[in-house]
């Protein structure tokens, strides 16, 4: 067959495959809402310096002449106890939260998945070591572990991310291990082994592509969870420190002034809820995409 025909066929197949995935995704109307919310969050995070009306307010700056101003035209979300524009800080808060989610998941997902693949494919002592280690990390309540780690180290956003990463990876291992274990006995894996395929090939080229569905779904849903845990850490003072515009920190600081100056806590909290909800709904859609 001529190369041109082949590439045309290949393209049309890929297009059809994408069309089918989109159909499955868009069947749930809420998934589309989630997609919109998630994309909005990401755009806000990326374009923060340009869309925030008062970008200078994220630094150690004070405007004591305009402290505790309620929401108005000039400052739609009001100002906080330092006179800083809460809208701008919230916008930058998106950036910090999503950055934290991004870093944590980029670290934990690949490591967790690879360990899960290896444990599932190679039974025996390697499996035991990996899975029991994962069990140990899972057994400790997430927040408690993070708190413990953070209180020992200097509280800052970097250490918070490390702490969360440390207790996040085993869930990916477990998920991947389950999928791998069930796929191991399928005939196509047997066939590959009989042909003489190396273990590397079987794990990464045969089994792994079939794990993508659950893994991508989990990553999407995890964005919300990581942000929640990170915000919780900041809320108790163990994560980002002021003046960093972390949403959790903002909620904590605003809490001192409730209920009189309610806008200082409420708007950052709503932002957290917005991001988490968006990614959760998106996660449902991603799951649908991979279900037959």
């Amino acid at each position, binding site marked *: *067959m001529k190369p041109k*025909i*082949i590439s045309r*066929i*290949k393209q049309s*197949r*890929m297009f059809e*495959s994408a069309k089918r995935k989109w159909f499955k995704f868009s069947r749930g109307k809420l998934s589309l809402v989630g997609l919109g919310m998630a994309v909005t969050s990401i755009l806000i995070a990326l374009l923060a310096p340009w869309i925030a009306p008062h970008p200078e307010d994220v630094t150690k700056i004070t405007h004591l002449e305009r402290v505790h101003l309620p929401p108005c035209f000039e400052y739609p979300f009001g100002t906080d106890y330092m006179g800083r524009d809460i809208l701008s800080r919230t916008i930058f808060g998106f950036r910090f939260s999503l950055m934290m989610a991004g870093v944590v998941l980029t670290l934990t997902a690949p490591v967790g998945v690879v360990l899960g693949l290896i444990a599932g494919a190679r039974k025996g002592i390697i499996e035991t070591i990996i899975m029991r280690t994962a069990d140990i990390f899972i057994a400790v309540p997430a927040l408690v572990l993070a708190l413990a780690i953070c209180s020992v180290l200097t509280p800052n956003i970097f250490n918070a991310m490390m702490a969360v990463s440390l207790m996040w990876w085993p869930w990916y291992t477990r998920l991947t291990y389950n999928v791998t274990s069930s796929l191991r006995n*399928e*005939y*196509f894996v*047997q*066939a*590959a*082994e*009989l*042909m*003489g*395929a190396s273990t590397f*090939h079987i794990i990464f080229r*045969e089994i792994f*592509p*079939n794990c*993508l569905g659950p893994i991508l779904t989990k990553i999407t849903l995890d964005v919300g969870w990581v942000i929640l845990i990170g915000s919780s850490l900041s809320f108790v003072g163990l994560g980002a420190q002021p003046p960093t515009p972390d949403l959790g920190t903002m909620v904590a600081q605003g809490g001192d002034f409730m209920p009189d100056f309610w806008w200082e806590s409420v708007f950052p909290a709503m932002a957290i809820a917005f991001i988490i909800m968006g990614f959760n709904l998106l996660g449902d859609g991603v799951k649908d995409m991979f279900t*037959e």
Partner: protein
Amino acid sequence: MEIEVLHAGFITRKVGKLKEKKQGDSILVVENLTKHFKTSYGTVHAVDNIGFDIKYGETFGLVGESGSGKTTTGYVIMGIYAPTSGKITFKGQDISVPARKRPKSIKRDMSIVFQDPASSLNPAKTIKDIVALPLKIQGLVKDDAELERKVEELLNAVELPPERFMYRLPRDLGGGEKQAVAIARAIATNPSFIVLDEPTSALDVSVQAKIINTLIKLQKDLNLSYLFITHDLSLMRNVASRVAIMYLGKIYEYAPTSMFFQNPLHPYTKMLLASVPVLSREEEKLKPQGIKSRGEIPSAVNPPPGCRFHTRCPFAKEICKTKEPKFVMFENEHYVACHLYH
């Protein structure tokens, strides 16, 4: 009726010279093959001391129901399991080890087509990748262009037009088409021997006919020998040249196809033939009368002593419950292990 004590399929060491002659034209020889599995319920005696040979270019049929051990036999021959004891000889070479210990040249020469087409193909890969895999692993092609050409050739050989199927995913294919892909993959490395484990059991009758015809054509074109495993006796009648019937891990009868069907000797063979649903009066007449299916297959963890079929056999005698029957040659090449024929 000649009585010679034999190990079904070929003469044992007692008559040395004849063995040489027979083994010369056998591509696969199985001797005293046993496979036990240790499970939490006990030891499963999947296959117990069986032996047969497959000649070059023939289709050897292994028939039995679930629990008979026929699939396990196929898997041990392919090296998916290591034999518990016994010997498997392929083209004169001893291959009684699991597949990962076998040389690459042997792996290239033997392949298997599995029973379930859906699970045989990686759902995340295109047909091209699936069929190309053995070529890549064995290093049989130099570059992508040659790979594509070879895959086209293979798809054409199983009558799947390449332009329609190369970049499809398995889920877009029907059962028969998936199985055709599995066959294309099996012949990719130009093997001499293929184990066909119930290749058409999951398929409709009209699709089955196409696949079987493809297999027959390929056998002629590529000089293949087949071990054809199935429970479908009507199908076996039309594809195999010799048939062995297995029950609970043992072979009980063994004959060239026409003899097996026209003159079944073992009571289990008769029971199985009598249970086959047929479509015409001529076929009804061929079925053994006076024997109906009864009972269920016992557990392989504690197989009945003596002849394993005695719990369901309408002709069981006292000796059947204690002593295992040995093989006897009834007519030319027709062997049966049953106390009725001693």
